[in-house]
């Protein structure tokens, strides 16, 4: 046998690929990139058709936060995929409330479709649809009091629509025309309505999480039983602002609900880029001593129930709850991207938790409170309403034609009172 000199062995080792090689930086990638057949088997979903998998308990709302650990790593569900409402989290809503939820979701989807097409016609610069996530915003609005301030990210238009914000005002904001209450100052979809308890959306992601906590601290400071309800996407949980919000809400036991809408995609980056090796986004709340729950975000009833639970806890002095809404962004991030460039074409159809609108509809049909004819009639009615309202909104101008906004307003609302240098600049601008 040939004897191998120790020096040769060391040389061979240095050339061989090693697990500890310096070139093995790990970068996570999603499974379903373009050209692949979408596959979600690694999610290890339980049998979604069986109520036997609805095993997570609904604890007392004042339970010790750490006892919510199973809820943070599990998935709270009420609706089976065949439309039955089962398990301890069933909020037992009456048919009228269920139909209202369906209608609000349906309206949101019709509005989204109209506004998306309007942008494609060049009448606005930008729009963002919420298809697949309507149930989260609508259920939140219906489970909370109208006086509870919501701090939305950009995909919760369902909150505004459910709270009865005038559709024409919403459309005029997207058109940046003379009917826009914000006088064209903010980009489309950055709505603001103090009256409807809807905080001004800024497009910086995550920054408003700590505002919600500050608002909640103010609610407590003033001795009210109101709360605040913040939303972020899963991607922006990587921002320091998320950490700030969780820290401050924990320290001051702020009455607030911190929602992470995990729709799997942050533009083209899959959720694993923000999640890293962590179990769930909800689980992060436990590290701060906050009650934490992961819920099927495409299950209207489950979202409603979890929101009610968190609101009751906050109002009773139990502090904040972190809720991860496990959902899926069925369309592009916005009008500015093409999802077929970064994810498998059929991925939305392969998403195992279905479409929230269809699932609530099926449930209502199953319990005999709805049918296909009524649904078709509702769609027709809502589309007509959206079409007529849009015509009205467009009569106030569009970004493409004439916005009708007085240029002098550009210098207003920078400060409460206009300082001399802005007055001079307004004069210089000749407006």
């Amino acid at each position, binding site marked *: 046998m040939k004897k191998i000199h120790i020096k040769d062995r060391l040389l061979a080792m240095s050339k061989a690929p090693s697990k500890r090689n310096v070139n093995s930086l790990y970068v996570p990638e999603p499974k379903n990139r373009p050209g692949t057949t979408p596959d979600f088997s690694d999610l290890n979903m339980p049998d979604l058709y069986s109520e036997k998998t609805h095993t997570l308990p609904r604890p007392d709302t004042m339970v010790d936060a750490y006892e919510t650990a199973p809820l943070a790593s599990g998935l709270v569900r009420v609706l089976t995929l065949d439309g039955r409402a089962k398990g301890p989290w069933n909020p037992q809503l009456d048919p009228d409330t269920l139909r209202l939820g369906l209608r609000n979701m349906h309206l949101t989807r019709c509005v989204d479709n109209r506004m998306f097409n309007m942008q494609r016609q060049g009448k606005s610069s930008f729009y963002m649809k919420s298809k697949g996530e309507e149930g989260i915003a609508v259920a939140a609005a219906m489970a909370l009091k109208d006086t509870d301030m919501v701090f939305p990210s950009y995909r919760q238009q369902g909150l505004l629509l459910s709270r009865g914000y005038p559709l024409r005002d919403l459309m005029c904001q997207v058109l940046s025309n003379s009917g826009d209450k914000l006088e064209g100052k903010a980009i489309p979809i950055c709505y603001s309505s103090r009256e409807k308890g809807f905080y001004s959306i*800024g497009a910086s992601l995550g920054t408003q999480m700590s505002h919600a906590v500050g608002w909640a601290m103010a609610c407590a400071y003033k001795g009210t039983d109101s709360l605040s309800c913040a939303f972020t996407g899963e991607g922006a949980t990587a921002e320091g602002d998320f950490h700030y919000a969780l820290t401050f809400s924990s320290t001051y036991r702020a009455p607030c609900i911190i929602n992470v809408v995990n729709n799997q995609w942050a533009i083209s980056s899959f959720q694993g880029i923000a999640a890293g090796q962590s179990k769930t986004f909800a689980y992060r709340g436990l590290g701060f001593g906050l009650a934490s729950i992961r819920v099927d975000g495409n299950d209207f009833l489950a979202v409603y129930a979890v929101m009610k639970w968190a609101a009751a806890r906050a109002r009773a002095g139990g502090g904040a709850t972190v809720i991860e809404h496990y959902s899926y962004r069925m369309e592009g991030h916005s009008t500015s991207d093409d999802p077929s460039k970064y994810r498998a074409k059929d991925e939305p159809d392969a998403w195992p938790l279905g479409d929230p609108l269809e699932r609530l509809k099926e449930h209502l049909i199953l319990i005999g409170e709805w049918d296909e004819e009524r649904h078709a009639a509702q769609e027709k009615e809502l589309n007509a309403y959206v079409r007529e309202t849009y015509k009205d909104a467009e009569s106030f101008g569009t970004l493409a034609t004439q916005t009708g906004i007085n240029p002098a307003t550009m210098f207003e609302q920078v400060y409460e009172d206009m300082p001399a240098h802005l007055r001079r600049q307004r004069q210089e601008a000749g407006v």
Partner: protein
Amino acid sequence: MAQMNMIQAINSALDVKMSQDPDVLVFGEDVGFFGGVFRCTAGLQEKHGLHRCFDSPISEGGIVGTAVGMGAYGLRPVVEIQFADYIYPGFDQICSEAARLRYRSNGDFTAPITIRSPMGGGIHGGTSHSQSPEALFTHISGLKVIIPSNPYDAKGLLIKAIEDNDPVVFFEPKRLYNGPFDGDHNKPVESWAGHELGEVPEGHYTIDFENARIHQEGSELTILCYGTMVWVAEAAARACGISADIVDLRSLLPLDLDAIVKSVKKTGHCLILHEATRTSGFGAELMAQVQENCFYHLEKPVVRVTGWDTPYPHALEWEYFPGLERVSQSIIRMMEG
């Protein structure tokens, strides 16, 4: 009237507002039980309650962010950033949120918050406890930036800031907390006791922004300055035997341009002083304003004396600081050249 140093004047402003308005609350790192590392919030927790003056986590972004939310609700939070050098984690919240909330919501939501922070050198703070970052904030539309140079102004301006419905960044030159400082670090420390500007009313009063103070009147030279440099300007003018109009800006944004123009047109000479680094410093803006508005009245080019474009060095603090000697030399060169 009472005799106060700048710490006591700031404390008094907070106390007056907290007594007057239940919506005013104070928080920040170590400001509660301990009363702040510079003692500006001493006794406020004991007098007004734990929920009105409390400690925050070490999280400047979180401090400003929660203050914005409270302000939007209708409270008037006054937060302390322990050193201006540590304001940067809160910079995004100040620029993207506090300063923009009113505009983007067209007045629907506002951020009536005050952000207090000690700034400037002269206490051996080195790179991390000496910075003067005011120019970063004067570039942000929607903010107001205030820097007092004495106890009387500090109290009146701080009360004004708290009552203002827009976000105010209120920088406190920490070298002036205990006394005026003319830039000569070899001299014994002077106190505010017995000083005219250390005479501070105990009750409520305000000083308007966009309203410079003429620290001293003169006919030969205008010196534009604020904070610590007001005192250096006074000493240097005296040392040079020159009749200087010293304009203490007090409010950098908005700026009292009328006072500047009036003074420069009178003297025909303009010297600009600040402790902050030179490039893109606030002096550049002042120089541009003087050029745009007073060009035909200038007899000499405008001169800046500032901190060097280096981080604030620890051992060489007094070589960095634009002290008496550098300012005096610049005055002489300008007037004789």
